[in-house]
């Protein structure tokens, strides 16, 4: 049964091929069903393979398909490595992807490029599966680039609008920086081990020189922070929300952005072999990103931006987990996060859909009455991410925090503060969207004008958004918004995801060793380098209670601010946060000023030296040719003469060879 593993990526690839060639002819909605069917079948195959994997020694299975790049000593095969880690990834990737495909049929209804959307989605799933299943770094890199390209296509899916197109470019360029690190890491790995296959070089890692291991780990880390949106390369992810919401849910929340975490977990022996500051750096970057993104999320008005920064923040948690040696905790949080963040994004998509493409939370409110299913499922997702027991986010976040405390109390405290912020901003989102007064339709304009008058500091970004939305409204006519509940293809995924967001925590309960299913499952992959400690019953109870208190405190604070209006929200939604700590603006300023001068210098070099060399070669060729062309003058007698010259040369040659 495990032999079927090749079918898992092959099915989305087949879907992609069918759609890319016949998508237009198949049309809506059948193209969507084909795409969904391909991924769903892939999920079923994954389940079958999963069942088969239990029978394999160490739950590991390798399948080599063919030799891909044979070059002397260097040889890369296309092969799949199926071990507990990749199996877990494959299961949740295909599972969530099937649901989001189904959702997209409803969400993308009526779009002029409906089949194209599913073409990209299928290609994305294929690439993602190659990324996690590839048995060597080069194949993983292929998938890595594939998901990056799909991400770019899908962010800029509605490329008619300039913002969307440039958001795509931003994501692409930012990712390039990370990809550079990944590539250098691949070269270095080959240099150090002579192979890039995981099963060949990972067991050798403990014997590696510390500096080499440190360098490889550092470069892989740079690759990971690009893909997984960590400081300083996180700036692309919030802008990536320009894409359709299912894309945000699938690519920019559940699967692709976790690829960096996957990569780091995969190469955990290398991190273990590197200098001790590498794990520290990973942990610090993770926790700093988590905290920073959480503060920014506090002040966003766009529902998807809040979720985007929240994603960045949660990814920060996963990096923290990797840094403190809690590899299984990172995967655990990755899985639960995939469930609840996909759920939240899809819920947000449902809201946006019901509100006729309205994304500004200032124009929402009290939606739970008109969108009951969306509201209930969204609330489950909210409780999960806020860390309220017994929902999944509580268990996974607590798992990470336990590892953090084991490493350093400071990390633990900042983690707790971030958890508080998380609970607060998510509650703010829920209260603003589903509770309170309805600010859509008639009542919206007055309050907005009021808000605007006061929010003098709410500069550039929000203004642009408000303007854009005003335009949209002017087209639709004021007060024409009638929120409605979405259709069943959108609701079914919400319900399924809500179910898993609620119970996924039981994958890994901390009470007894036997209940830690995921830890035990991942043991063959990460067991050796996992931080090992035993929490006493008292400490465990204390930590769980503290986390619960923190979560409830955050929710309560948000309740006081946004529903009871005890505190002016503007004292929390600082413009400093709303503008994302002015990081984008700083980059723009640098690139427009000092940076630009440097680039112009480089461009000058390019123009003079590189172009000069290229054009020089071209000119030399043309010049030489124009002189040589005199030989080919068209006179047949001249050609005959040249034959004669050739004949003489041959005779002369023969005469030198023959001794008479």
């Amino acid at each position, binding site marked *: 049964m495990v032999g079927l593993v090749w079918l898992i990526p092959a099915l989305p690839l087949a879907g992609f091929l069918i759609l890319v060639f016949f998508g237009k002819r198949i049309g809506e909605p059948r193209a969507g069903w084909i795409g969904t069917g391909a991924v769903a079948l892939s999920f079923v195959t994954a389940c079958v393979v999963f069942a088969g994997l239990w029978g394999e020694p160490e739950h590991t299975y390798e399948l080599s398909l063919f030799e891909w790049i044979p070059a002397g000593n260097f040889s890369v095969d296309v092969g799949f490595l199926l071990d507990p880690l990749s199996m877990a990834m494959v299961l949740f990737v295909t599972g969530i992807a099937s649901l989001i495909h189904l959702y997209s049929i409803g969400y993308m209804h009526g779009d002029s490029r409906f089949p194209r959307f599913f073409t990209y989605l299928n290609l994305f799933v294929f690439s993602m599966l190659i990324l996690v299943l590839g048995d060597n770094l080069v194949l993983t890199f292929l998938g890595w680039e594939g998901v990056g390209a799909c991400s770019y296509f899908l962010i800029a899916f509605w490329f008619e609008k300039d913002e969307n197109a440039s958001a795509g470019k931003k994501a692409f360029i930012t990712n390039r920086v990370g990809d550079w690190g990944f590539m250098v890491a691949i070269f270095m790995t080959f240099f150090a081990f002579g192979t890039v296959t995981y099963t060949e070089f990972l067991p050798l890692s403990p014997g590696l020189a510390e500096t080499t291991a440190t360098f490889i780990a550092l470069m892989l880390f740079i690759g990971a922070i690009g893909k997984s949106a960590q400081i300083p390369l996180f700036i692309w992810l919030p802008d990536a929300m320009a894409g359709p919401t299912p894309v945000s849910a699938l690519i920019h929340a559940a699967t692709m952005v976790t690829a960096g975490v996957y990569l780091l977990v995969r190469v955990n022996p290398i991190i273990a072999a590197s200098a001790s500051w590498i794990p520290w750096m990973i942990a610090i970057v993770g926790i700093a990103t988590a905290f920073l993104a959480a503060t920014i999320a506090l002040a966003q008005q766009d529902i998807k931006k809040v979720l985007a920064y929240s994603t960045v923040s949660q990814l920060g948690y996963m990096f923290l987990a990797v840094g403190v040696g809690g590899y299984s905790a990172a995967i655990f949080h990755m899985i639960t996060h995939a469930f609840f963040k996909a759920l939240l994004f899809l819920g947000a998509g449902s809201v946006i859909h019901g509100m006729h493409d309205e994304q500004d939370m200032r124009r929402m409110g009290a939606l739970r009455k008109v969108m009951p299913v969306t509201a209930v499922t969204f609330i489950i997702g909210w409780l999960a991410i806020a860390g309220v027991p017994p929902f999944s986010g509580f268990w996974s976040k607590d798992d990470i925090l336990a590892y953090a405390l084991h490493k350093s109390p400071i990390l633990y405290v900042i983690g707790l503060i971030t958890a508080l912020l998380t609970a607060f901003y998510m509650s703010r989102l829920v209260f603003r969207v589903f509770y309170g007064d309805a600010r859509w339709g008639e009542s919206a304009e007055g309050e907005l004008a009021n808000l605007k008058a006061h929010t003098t500091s709410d500069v550039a970004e929000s203004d642009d958004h408000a303007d854009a939305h005003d335009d949209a409204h002017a087209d639709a006519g004021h007060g024409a918004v009638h929120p409605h509940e979405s259709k069943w293809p959108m609701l079914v995924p919400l319900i399924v995801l809500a179910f898993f967001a609620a119970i996924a925590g039981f994958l890994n309960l901390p009470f007894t060793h036997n209940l830690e299913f995921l830890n035990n499952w991942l043991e063959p992959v990460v067991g050796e380098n996992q931080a090992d400690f035993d929490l006493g019953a008292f400490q465990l109870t204390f930590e769980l209670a503290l986390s619960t208190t923190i979560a409830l405190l955050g929710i309560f604070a948000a309740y006081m601010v946004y529903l009871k209006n005890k505190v002016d929200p503007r004292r929390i939604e600082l413009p400093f946060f709303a503008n994302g700590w002015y990081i984008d603006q700083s980059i723009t300023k640098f690139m427009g000023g000092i940076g630009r001068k440097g680039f112009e210098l480089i461009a000058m070099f390019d123009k003079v030296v590189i172009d000069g060399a290229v054009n020089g070669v071209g000119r030399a060729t043309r010049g030489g040719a124009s002189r040589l062309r005199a030989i080919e*003058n*068209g006179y*047949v007698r001249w050609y005959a*003469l040249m034959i004669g010259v050739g004949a003489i040369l041959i005779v002369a040659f023969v005469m030198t060879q023959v001794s008479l």
Partner: protein
Amino acid sequence: MGSNLSLAYLMLSAILFVIGGVGVLIRRNPLVMIMCVELMLNAVNLSFVTFGKMLDDVSGQIIVFFVMVVAAAEVVVGLALIVAMARRRPGATADDLRTLRG
């Protein structure tokens, strides 16, 4: 017949071949060029027969037959080309036909 006379035949053949070759190179009238080619072919024929004589072999003469056939075919096609060319551009020489140059 002594071998010296055979060598004289070969020398005559070489001289005639070179005369024909130089003629091809310096004459511009296509008809004359064809005649010069005939000269070269005949020079070669002469050498073939001489070689056949020297080796006491009849194939030297047989090959001349085939050369003659090829020469006839060549003249036929060459004259057809000249006719086609003269129809389009009366009085054209080989030098005027160089629009196919590189």
